[in-house]
Each structure stands twice: as structure tokens, then as C-alpha cells.
């Protein structure tokens, strides 16, 4: 590949890496153009190396002065596992952003936002994208309540950081190993029905299935709910349509119209189905990664090199 040579191998330097729990890690990455104008709610796309796929990730924090952004990643398949192997001092081949629309809370009239009682619901990794929004509100004198839910104690992330910027912080685990016990939807019910809380707006971010059930819950109490959709993406600029969703009776591209939408209108079942499109192939890719070199030897016997 003669035409790649002059490109430095490290283009977007990883300045800091921190493992938050065995399957979730945080990275601070040098990306001055992204850091310059990004806002809470937006995302970026990274590529690990020349053969890497384009992986969309939420911008969890940014430092305009230092020209860095923070991402928090959960290892799901081959690419995110490969990403976890990267260390400080190494870098990404590509980082592009900010993409998508900033959160409405950031762009709406601040006085109106101040009059609202806001509840954030973060499921698992969703804590990471919720954090910059809560932090932004805090910096603007608004303290929002936050529910953070995780399967078990070890998977609770960013607790300390969140505690500093949230109004009330409610932590819950599915297995009851930490904080309250049960799903985030149960906490919503408890807060509204038993603890006399009133909310004018809910922002739910997490796995699609969790967002779907959050919306079913908040509907009962007539709390308008915003969700952040993470469908399969390729370019992230509106060019491919892979990220299309049905929202109300319209087709929307998550990468340009979103990623945040009115949760009452999103067709979650369709979206969850579309996510599974490449499951078999991605499973094979993961297997290949795990079995590593043993399956790339090209011995010709097993057909693993075909």
C-alpha cells in the first residue's frame, strides 16, 4: 500500500485509559476538531486501524482547551474488544465528529429548562452519555435527578462523577447487590407513586429494551420522555440510511435527525430487530478474534483461511 506511508500511524492519540469495570473502559482521546464545537448529546465515529469498521460512540466529556474528548466503551463484539486492547500512547486511525444533533436541553431556552423538573434514567453503559448532560445542566444551575441502573454492583460506572453533578442520585441493581434493588422502571414507579416526586421531563438512555420499558412506564404518568437511539450506522452523515428508524409516521435518520427522539413515537421493536441484522457475521468475527492466530494459519485443512 504505497499511498498510505506518509500518514502517521497514530493520528488520534489516546491520552488516558481507565478500566471502569471488566467490560467497560474510558478513554481520553486527542481530537481537536471534535472537541472544539461538540455539545452534550452528540457522538463521534472512530476507526481503530485501516481494516477497522466505523464505530459510533457518544461524546461523554470534552475539554476544548486541551483538544480532547472522552469516550466510554462497552465491549460487545470484535471491534470493541479490539479497542480495549489499545493503550495510552497508541491511537485511533480515524476520529470524526461531532455528529448528530445536540441534546434539546442544551439548545432550548435555558429559562424554560430551569422551570422543568427533569429525571434522567441511565441504564448500564447509558450512564456515560447521561453524564455530560447532567453536568451541563449543573453548570447552568439546574440540578436534575438521576437514576442509574446496572445488572450488578461491579457494573455501576461513573458513580462519583455523577454524584457531583446530579440533584438526587438513585442507584439500583437488578440483583440488589448495590443501592436499590430492581430495574430502573421500578425506581421510576417508586419515586412517582410512593415518594411523591413529580417530573416534567424524562431523558432515558441505555439499551433499547430498557428505553422501551422506560417509555411504557413514563407514559403512565404522562411524563414526556426523550430517548437516545443507537442503531447500526456506517457513515454517520446521512449518506447510507442504515440508521433509519420509524418515529411516529416518519422515517428518520438517527445520525442526522437524532440520536435523541421523542420516546413516545419511536418504534422500538422494529429498531431492535434491525440491530440484529449482522448478528451471525459479527459472532463469527468475535470467534475469529478469540481463537486468534490459531484460526488464521491457513493450514488448508479447516478452511479457516477461506
Amino acid at each position, binding site marked *: 500500500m504505497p499511498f498510505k506511508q506518509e500518514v502517521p500511524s497514530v493520528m488520534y492519540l489516546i491520552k488516558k485509559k481507565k478500566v471502569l469495570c471488566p467490560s467497560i473502559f474510558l478513554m481520553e482521546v486527542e481530537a481537536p*476538531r471534535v472537541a472544539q464545537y461538540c455539545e452534550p448529546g452528540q457522538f463521534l465515529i472512530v476507526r481503530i486501524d485501516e*481494516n477497522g*469498521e466505523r464505530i459510533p460512540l457518544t461524546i461523554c466529556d470534552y475539554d476544548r482547551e486541551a483538544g480532547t474528548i472522552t469516550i466510554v466503551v462497552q465491549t460487545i463484539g470484535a471491534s470493541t474488544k479490539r479497542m480495549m486492547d489499545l493503550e495510552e500512547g497508541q491511537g485511533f486511525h*480515524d476520529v470524526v465528529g*461531532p455528529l448528530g444533533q445536540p441534546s434539546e436541553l442544551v439548545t432550548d431556552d435555558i429559562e424554560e429548562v430551569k422551570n422543568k423538573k427533569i429525571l434522567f434514567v441511565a441504564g448500564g453503559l447509558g450512564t456515560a452519555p447521561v453524564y455530560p448532560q447532567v453536568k451541563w445542566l449543573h453548570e447552568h444551575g439546574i440540578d436534575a435527578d438521576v437514576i442509574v441502573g446496572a445488572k450488578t454492583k461491579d457494573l455501576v460506572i461513573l458513580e462519583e462523577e455523577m454524584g457531583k453533578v446530579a440533584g438526587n442520585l438513585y442507584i439500583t441493581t437488578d440483583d440488589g447487590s448495590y443501592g436499590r434493588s430492581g430495574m430502573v422502571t421500578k425506581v421510576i414507579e417508586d419515586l412517582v407513586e410512593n415518594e411523591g416526586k413529580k417530573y416534567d421531563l424524562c431523558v432515558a438512555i441505555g439499551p433499547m429494551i430498557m428505553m422501551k420499558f422506560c417509555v411504557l412506564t413514563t407514559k403512565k404518568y404522562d411524563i414526556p420522555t426523550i430517548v437516545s437511539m443507537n442503531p447500526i450506522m*456506517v457513515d454517520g452523515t446521512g449518506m447510507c440510511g442504515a440508521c433509519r428508524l420509524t418515529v411516529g409516521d416518519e422515517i428518520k435518520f438517527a445520525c442526522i435527525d437524532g440520536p435523541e427522539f421523542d420516546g413516545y413515537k419511536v418504534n422500538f421493536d422494529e429498531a431492535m*430487530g434491525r440491530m440484529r441484522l449482522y448478528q451471525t457475521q459479527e459472532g463469527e*468475527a468475535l470467534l475469529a478474534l478469540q481463537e486468534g492466530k490459531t484460526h488464521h494459519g491457513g493450514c488448508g485443512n479447516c478452511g479457516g483461511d477461506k
Partner: protein
Amino acid sequence: MAAPGFERVPISEQAPEVRAKNFEEVCLGYTEEEAVVEAARCLNCKNPRCVSGCPVNINIPGFITALKDKDFKRSYEILTESSSLPAVCGRVCPQETQCEAQCIRGIKGDAVSIGKLERYVADRAREEGTKMKVECAPNGHKVAVIGSGPAGLTCAGDLAKLGYEVTIFEALHEAGGVLTYGIPEFRLPKEKVVAPEVENVKSLGVKIETNVVIGKSVTIDELMENEGFEAVFIGSGAGLPMFMKIPGENAKGVFSANEYLTRNNLMKAFRENSDTPIFKGAKVAVVGGGNVAMDAARTALRLGADTTIVYRRSAAELPARAEEVEHAKEEGIKFELLTNPVEILTDDQNNVTGMKCVRMELGEPDASGRRRPVVIEGSEFELETNAVIMALGTSPNPLIASTTKGLETNKWKCIVADEKFGKTSKEGVFAGGDAVTGAATVILAMGAGKAAAKGIDEYIRNK
């Protein structure tokens, strides 16, 4: 070899049954001997009609005569006086409706193979390391170019030759525009042809900054106010895919051609070592009849699918280049003409299982001058398929227009720009290529890039 006659020298191609299973280039190109013999068929006309058929008015008899005389360097020089991407245009121009359509030889026999000769000269120059002529003393003025497709590359190259300090901003991680993400390897090899053309432009001193989405990472106004760019050229193409808005279109297995081609071309999904997956159905239906539809269908075929093109008009109206239709047929792609999908059928998991279609007939001519297809009552039938690729056309992405103060667009979201110099409604901002015309051709985009380079030079000199 036979004396120059009425028939063109045939060109060698990979056999259909072989190429249907690989992504190597279909056309193998002329040998020197073949090229010289074909060149000798050109009559070196005093009033060359071919030139008027070429949107950038290449001196066709000039480069062909030099080729005939085996002065390959001179031939390349003549070509590059008017075109900065000859190896690309020689491969993908719709020659049969442009230069070759006008060639006098075409009246009694075959037109001269202008495109194939152009390709030969450009390929040879690349292999021999011949560079474009440059005479650039830096003039200290900065110009930004948005998009690295044919329009952007040409505009940047021409400005660099005039001494401007040019930076191209490209949203994707690789330069080339449609040449890189859209047109497949088997028609336009990326490492062999596209990368060197991009490199040529860089060798003129042009900087290419990838991974910058103008309108998101930074706006045009910010480029001009904060980064010292005196003028901007917008060559952002027409990348927004259209869908049919029929039931079932969000099912698993329905793709835009852009997505399918991007996965395969830009992301190299056909290669074993690429992390990007691509959907491989046993049966694939492609809706549409243009170059994009042919490219998507021939890609699906190469990935192992039994592939059918579904097009609502008849063979005569297929907008794709004749050569591509021919190649597609030879490779075994089926055509369901005068057919239009009305619904995509799915199983209970929302996977595509088929397409409900209707047969069409041609009625009165419509606004485009082509006869309008009308549905034949009661002709509904089901076409079995596991995937549907929509290749219905594209429109410009509104991202730039919506984030640039004072930039006028028309009702198709195309940027309004004058034809002569690409001037837009905003001072210092020029535009050209698909972003202005809607989806068109490589050579037209290139021509627009050239025109805008002149316009920008004039604008900055008179400022």
C-alpha cells in the same frame, strides 16, 4: 493486426464467468500495439466533432495523434491540459453519449474508442511515473475545498497549479468521493487508479484533511472567519439516498445502494480482513436502472447472490451506461423490466422474504421526455428475494446549506451556483458538481471544479 478500418480494435476483458466471482477490474485495457492501431483510426479531423461532445473539450485528435506517433508523454500532456482525472474518465465516462457519439467515424462503422485510448495514455503515464506539468509559485492565498470527489479534487488541483494554498476537507476517512465509496473496484480499481489520482493532486501541494464534516466539525463561516480561508469551494456531492416509501421498507434486508456499496467499496467488506460486515442473501433484488443499480447488482452477484434488477421502464430507458448493462447481462444478472415494487414482504422476524410487484407499460412522455410508466391493472405478482437494494437516486445533503448563512438552494436542495464560475449567493463561496446539479457524472463534476477554480482565482485577484 488488420489495417485501420470501420471496426474498432476489440479490447480484452475478464471472461464473464470468471469475473462474476472476483472484484478485479473487468476491462483489461489495450496493449501498446492495440492502442496505436486504434489511434490510427482517428481521422484527425479539422473540425473535430468529438471535442464538442466532451464536457471539458479535451483536444481529442491532439492526444490521439500523439499516441499514434508513440509520443506518450506528449499525449498525456495534451490530455491533462483539460482533464485532471484521465484514468478515471477513460473508464467511467458515458462515452457513447458524449465524445464517441459525435465521432465522424461513427457514421459508417464504429466511433473511435476515445475513452479506452484515454485510459491507455493515463495508465501508461502512471506506470512510467510521468507527472502533470506544474508551475506553481506560492501566492500566499488560502482556499478551502469541501469534498474530495472529482469536483473537489479538480478545483483543488487547478488552484494549486496557480499557486494557491489549498486544503480539502473530507467527511469520510478516505478521499475520492463516489470514486472511492460508490463505484466498485471491478470498474475503477482503488489502489491502482483512484489513489494515484488523489496522490497527484497532493503532489501539487494540496493538503487533504479527512474526517472533517463541514457543518458539524466546523462551518464555512468559521473557516473563513477563524482559519483564514479567503474563498471556499463546495463540492460535497449528492449523497442522500432516496427510498420508495412503500410498506416494509424498514425490514431487515432492505438497503440503500449507498449503504451496500459503501460497505463494500469504502469499508472493503468483500475482503476477509475487513471488520465491516455486509449482508449476503441467496437472492438479491436491486430496484433501479442507473449506474448505481448496475454497480449494486454486480457487487451482490460477486458476493454470491442470485441477482435481479427491477426497473419500471423498458430496456431502452435504462439510464446506465450501455457497457455496464451489457456487462451485467453477460455476468448473469436477470432483468425484470417494466416492473415496479409496491410492497416488501417479510416473515414474522421482519426479514425480507419477497417483494410484491406490479407490471408497467409505457404511456405518454413525462417532464423528462421519457415515456411515463403506468401500472397494468391486476398484474400484481410476488418476487422471491432475501434482500432489496434501493438504487433510486440521491439528492444533495442539506447539512452544508443549513449551516451556512446566506447560501441559496433550490427546491431540490441543490446549491444555486452560476454555470460559468460556480459563484453562489454567498460572497467568496463557490460550488459545483453533484451538489449543484444533483446526481450527474464524473466529467461534469470535474468540469464544474475547473470552472470554479477560474472563478475563485479571478475573485481573489480582484478582491
